């Protein structure tokens, strides 16, 4: 791989960073799958730890690049023109607001309620955290800074710019969607209110002839009870426990504490469903971004090269090298494009003129033959 202007580290470290970017992209999907399929807490703890390591790595990368570029007096250049702002957005905010609290949270709840970092459970459902997690998707753009698809610098830059704009717009829309009611796919707090209303409505029927056993059966067999980790009756007895309690408890509202319902009933309610929906929403955007980037890399870069970059490259080479005499191929459909209008002038005027100048100079420099025409007669 060629050394680029944006390279701040030795090639081996730059290559390791590329490997880490590719791994974190795959890891992002794995993390979301863990949420969708409700993987066991042991696995999730490992994922959280890996995520934390990734975030430390990328924060260190950002810090390193910032220091090195600042020493070279190019910090502004790095931030604005070498995708430093992407490095910034996808490093320390994720470390400080997502993975560090997650590590503290998941490793503090070893089944014990009220453990050291219970305040961090608030962060699990905070909107800011969800928004910050979306920033993980921006990391994909980092690949563009490293993997050059074509030899043309202009093509790579333009594809990079277009892809960055598209990815950032998608991410912004996803962020906005967290705040706009009609665009919101899942919201933890709304979901809790809805779940409480459903449970309250069902419990209220116990006073109207519905006995507790029937209530439990309804909860066990219907969707209403799918998120109820535990249910206490007014007598204080636990009348329902979810079979998958261990995996749902750490994803429950109020740090897994009982939430009061009507008729002195209490329940532990999991936010697994809205989180899974949010993970699915992220994955849709993630797959869209990957599709968009691959489309840009494999389709649009070829089109751009054919319609813009290749012509420019040939003209530049033709101006630079006296012996280079290949004409620019002008596609009939695009002959009115500015690039091909210029190429037409290059073909029709410069190349014939250059040919004359070149041959004139060559003839001038060539040693004249000793044989004269008069020698023949």
């Amino acid at each position, binding site marked *: 791989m060629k050394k680029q202007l944006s390279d701040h580290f030795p090639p081996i470290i730059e290559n390791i960073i590329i490997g880490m970017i590719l791994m974190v992209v795959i890891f992002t999907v794995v993390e979301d799958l863990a949420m969708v399929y409700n993987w066991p807490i042991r696995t999730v703890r490992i994922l959280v730890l890996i995520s934390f390591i990734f975030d430390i790595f990328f924060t260190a990368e950002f810090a390193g690049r910032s220091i090195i570029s600042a020493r070279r007096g190019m910090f502004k250049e790095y931030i604005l023109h070498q995708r430093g702002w992407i490095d910034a957005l996808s490093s320390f905010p994720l470390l400080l607001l997502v993975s560090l609290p997650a590590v503290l949270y998941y490793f503090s709840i070893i089944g014990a309620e009220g453990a050291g970092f219970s305040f961090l459970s608030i962060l699990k459902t905070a909107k800011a955290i969800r928004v910050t997690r979306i920033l993980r998707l921006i990391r994909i753009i980092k690949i563009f800074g490293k993997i050059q698809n074509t030899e043309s610098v202009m093509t790579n830059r333009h594809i990079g710019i277009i892809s960055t704009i598209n990815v950032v717009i998608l991410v912004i829309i996803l962020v906005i969607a967290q705040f706009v009611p009609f665009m919101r796919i899942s919201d933890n707090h709304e979901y809790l209110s809805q779940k409480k209303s459903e449970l309250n409505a069902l419990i209220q029927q116990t006073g109207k002839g519905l006995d507790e056993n029937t209530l439990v059966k309804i909860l066990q067999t219907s969707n209403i009870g799918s998120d109820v980790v535990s249910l206490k009756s007014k007598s204080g007895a636990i009348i329902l426990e979810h079979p998958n309690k261990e995996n749902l408890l750490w994803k429950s509202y109020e740090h897994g504490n009982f939430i009061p319902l009507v008729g002195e009933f209490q329940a532990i309610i999991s936010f697994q469903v809205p989180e899974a929906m949010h993970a699915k929403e992220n994955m849709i955007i993630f797959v869209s971004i990957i599709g968009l980037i691959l489309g840009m890399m494999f389709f649009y870069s070829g089109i751009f090269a054919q319609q813009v970059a290749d012509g420019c490259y040939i003209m530049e080479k033709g101006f630079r090298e006296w012996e280079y*005499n*290949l*004409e620019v191929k002008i596609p009939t459909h695009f002959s009115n494009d500015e690039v091909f209008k210029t190429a037409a002038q290059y073909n029709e005027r410069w190349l014939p003129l250059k*040919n004359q100048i070149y041959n004139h100079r060559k003839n001038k420099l060539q040693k004249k033959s000793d044989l004269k025409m008069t020698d023949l*007669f």
Partner: protein
Amino acid sequence: MHEAAKDQRKLDAMVNILRSQLIEEIGSIPESLIRPAVESFLNVNDFPETTGASRLIAIMMARSAAYDPNQKTDRGAESPDKSWFNITRRNAKHYGFDSRMLEELYQLAGDKGW
């Protein structure tokens, strides 16, 4: 040579000299082969009566001299032959080539993918 060629007798004499020299080197060779070869050095604009064969020889000689077997056709560029014929077509007057013949060769290069 152009001066000599303006006089038909001188041109004939030149052809004969060349022919006798070539016979010495490679054996018998007909005049019909020698004449177009000699005429190929003539400027078509100054000598419009030169034969088609000599005009084609002139173009092919120039093409052979400019030919680079290792030349790579860059992506987005015309082929070396097509480019050369088109450039030379525009310079036909300058080099004394037959522009209509170059035009034909240019079209052929495009059609046949030379």
